[in-house]
């Protein structure tokens, strides 16, 4: 499926990335990875709490 909107969004993301230096990209990778893991762990805690509530 080809979506003009999706393509424009991707182009905008690429353009935003290109404004970053390689060093800034690695810093963004670190920040992004920390956030993704925090989000994943929060989801795990939420699911565990929900299971306890079900009991």
């Amino acid at each position, binding site marked *: 499926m*080809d979506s003009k909107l999706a393509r424009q969004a991707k182009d905008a*993301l*690429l353009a935003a*990335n*290109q404004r*970053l230096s*390689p*060093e800034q*990209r*690695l*810093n*963004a*990778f*670190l920040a*992004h*990875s*920390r*956030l*993704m*893991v*925090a989000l994943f*762990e929060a989801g795990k805690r939420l699911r565990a709490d929900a299971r306890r509530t079900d009991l």
Partner: protein
Amino acid sequence: MRTRGPGEAALLLLDVASMLRSESIDYAVIGAMAASVHGLVRASVDADAILFISAAELGVLEKKFKSTDLQTELRRGDPDDPIAALLELTDGYGNRVDLLVGLRGLEREALSRTIDVPFVGEVLRVIGREDFIAMKVFAGGPQDIIDAASAIAASGGCLDLPLLRRLATRFGRTTLRALDNLLAPPPAG
């Protein structure tokens, strides 16, 4: 150790790179960190680097890492595996660095094309763009192809195409064909 919590594989890689330097072992950062440098920034729970040493030497290296706080696991590929061996290093927060050796098709000269990227007061050697794209096309998974396509798009037409095609050829005809598909302009309309 630089890591202070989960999601910090990039910082763990800095510690690993220091150890590699002290052992005079050349490396090149690959995987999601290289994808972030050459294409689109994305997250990952691990960091990867390729080493140009033998699987036996990787075994010796594992013993050195065992003496640190890191957990280690050395895996060897089957004879037909495109990766000869992989050393997995994990810290107490679950951050992981994978060190790969013997990637079939990747030439040692890739080391001369790495780029130095400053990061948290240190410098990391990141695989060059053409080597990265060829490797990702060879790997061939959905995320690999997205990474390769993003690196091509982010290059702004500044790719060394003869080099890229030569590198892809080293990985085999299937890789070269897949690369040509990625490089082909999208159909008009």
